[in-house]
């Protein structure tokens, strides 16, 4: 009889090509996603060493980080140039490198273009039980369908392109179990913000987190992608959620998903991956779903989470002296005073988008709050950036775009946008943004920007009132 294993251990074991005496393993990579920002130096490295891409058929490239979210074609359907010369050069490099190395490429104006972590699952390129990498830390996202997926640096991108493998040490395992039912207005985003607040920004370092429990199982695949996406904000390079019938129903019929008899074989295999009864984790954290409120961040680390009904904490309320110092710095940067009610914080900018929250269910949740309402006068800039061209088309078919524009929000083209401010979408210095993205770091949304991380429904609520708002007041 074999030892009971966790989901992580089963996926790991199935991908070990070779084990070294020190425990380091050569791991086979099933799927490699490539975007324009972290790949040019990797392709340059391949050229310099005369290497080729070992498995172009397991690689998919799509631009997302840099692209402006303003219209990409003129009235005549001609592609518009990118004004920023460096962004244009980076995009041009990917457009040259992908065909030169035989890699499938979704171009900037293709209907399927979008954020790499939205596109992967949407196309069925990301599959349960696979190893997936990308030169982007939010690759953890794909763990939502049960893939072992993690971000890598550019040297590793080059390593995977050349060898379709990575040299890795096995991670420790951590279970985050969320039991019970969440209350009204509490979404997948609130669950993961709450978890990050509980475990801390380094709580999962060295671990792969498996999210379990009835509140996780009750989530749609899109909600699971949101949760796993932010595993990295808790320090874990990857998150995992066991694939189940909900996952299979989501993937069936997607362009790159297996078909016919292959599909049945795949589902049988995926079903066998769930953590065995009796398997143990190195660490377990249990969270009661009833404790989770619509949540918001107050500081400059994603662990700085409070319920929307809460107040800005005082630095001396933290036990750890280094956290006290960090909190004081954060509050100075954020322009917040301890004791201020979060709901009294005025908001000038709204960003609904990013690989965390730009899928159709996210847009529906935001639209449900905005329908028949208008953004507050104090909200100067509010944009909705769908995660992909397909999400955009679906939203338009449902009339969501009209709800957004009628409410005074801008409806944009897909991309990473104001999540990291590499393209022209930035939050002005000193201004606040209620943002559905994943990071509230100093300067993340533009130099001097002040980010409050929230769910799409909470961002919509902030747009309506012009301040951070408990969405439960706007939904009956």
């Amino acid at each position, binding site marked *: 009889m074999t030892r009971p294993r966790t989901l992580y251990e089963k996926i790991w074991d199935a991908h070990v090509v070779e084990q070294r005496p020190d425990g380091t393993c050569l791991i086979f990579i099933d799927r490699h996603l490539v975007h324009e920002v972290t790949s040019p130096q990797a392709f340059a490295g391949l050229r310099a060493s005369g290497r080729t891409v070992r498995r172009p*058929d397991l690689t998919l490239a799509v631009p997302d980080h840099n692209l402006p979210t303003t219209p990409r074609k003129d009235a005549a359907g001609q592609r518009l140039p990118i004004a920023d010369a460096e962004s244009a050069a980076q995009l041009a490099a990917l457009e040259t490198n992908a065909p030169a190395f035989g890699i499938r490429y979704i171009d900037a104006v293709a209907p399927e273009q979008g954020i790499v972590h939205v596109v992967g699952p949407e196309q069925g390129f990301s599959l349960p039980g696979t190893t997936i990498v990308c*030169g982007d*830390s939010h690759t953890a996202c794909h763990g939502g369908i049960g893939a072992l997926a993690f971000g890598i*640096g550019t*040297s590793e991108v080059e390593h995977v392109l050349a060898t379709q493998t990575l040299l890795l040490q096995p991670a420790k395992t951590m279970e985050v179990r969320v039991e019970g039912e969440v209350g009204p207005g509490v979404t997948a985003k609130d669950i993961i913000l709450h978890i990050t607040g509980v475990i801390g920004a*380094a709580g999962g370092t060295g671990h792969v987190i498996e999210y379990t429990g009835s509140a996780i199982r009750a989530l749609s695949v899109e909600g699971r992608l949101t949760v796993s996406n932010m595993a990295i904000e808790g320090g874990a390079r990857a998150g995992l959620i066991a694939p189940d019938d909900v996952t299979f129903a989501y993937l069936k019929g997607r362009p790159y998903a297996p078909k016919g008899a292959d*599909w049945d074989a795949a589902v049988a295999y995926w079903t066998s991956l769930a953590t065995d009864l009796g398997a143990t984790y190195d660490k377990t954290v249990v969270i009661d779903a009833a404790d989770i409120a619509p949540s918001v961040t107050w500081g400059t680390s994603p662990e700085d989470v409070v319920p929307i009904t809460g107040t800005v904490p005082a630095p001396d309320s933290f036990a750890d002296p280094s956290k006290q110092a*960090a909190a004081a710095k954060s509050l100075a940067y954020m322009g917040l005073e301890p004791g201020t009610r979060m709901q009294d914080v005025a908001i000038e900018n709204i960003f609904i988008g990013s690989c965390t929250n730009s899928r159709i269910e996210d847009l529906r949740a935001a639209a449900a709050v905005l329908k028949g309402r208008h953004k507050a006068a104090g909200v100067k800039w509010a944009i909705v950036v769908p995660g992909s061209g397909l999400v955009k088309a679906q939203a338009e078919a449902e009339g969501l775009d009209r709800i957004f524009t009628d409410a005074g929000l801008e409806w944009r083209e897909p991309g990473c946008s104001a999540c990291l401010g590499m393209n022209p979408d930035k939050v002005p210095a000193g201004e606040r943004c209620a943002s559905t993205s994943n990071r509230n*770091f100093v300067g993340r949304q533009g*130099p001097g920007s002040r980010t409050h991380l929230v769910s799409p429904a909470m961002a919509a609520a902030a747009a309506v009132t012009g301040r951070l708002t408990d969405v439960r007041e706007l939904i009956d």
Partner: protein
Amino acid sequence: MAPIEKVEGRAIPFGLKNVDTDVIIPAKWLKTISREGLGRGAFETLRADPDNLFDNPEFAGAPILIAGDNFGCGSSREHAAWALGDLGIRVVIAPSYSDIFSGNAVKNGILPVVLPQTAIDRLMEVAATDPIHVDLDTQTVTTPFQDRFRFDIDPFRKMCLLNGLDEISLTEKSETAIAAHEKKMATDQPWLIPATP
């Protein structure tokens, strides 16, 4: 990649906790298609303050950086390691690192030394006035005041750093095993890993 064995020099007593890679190198510097020259953008936000440590002549050319817990968290951007390297940093000393950053550092010949907070506190004190010595071979950090801290490092990483090894060439020696895995998968799960032509 330049091999690394002994590094001696001034250490920047930075010490901050949860320093993310957006702080090490802001996104606007990521638009480059080269690995070079990123030192200009390193810690840009902090360097807007004229009293910052990085532009203090006392620490000009310092090869060591002392930091707090969870250094290099957040984005996977290897530009953070390139920027530190371009600043002349060969060693970072901190209580912990994000997993992605420490891997990126090693691949660029930067040694991430892990020491407990008590040792960091002492080194911060010494760094304000005196140089620090790091020896990868013996896995020790020493000061001119008889302090001696031993650190652990993964043996594979140590070997790569000491020899300046290119990991891709090492992996290419496992070609037979990689090909065997692909062949097995093409039989077991052809819907996942098709046979190569």
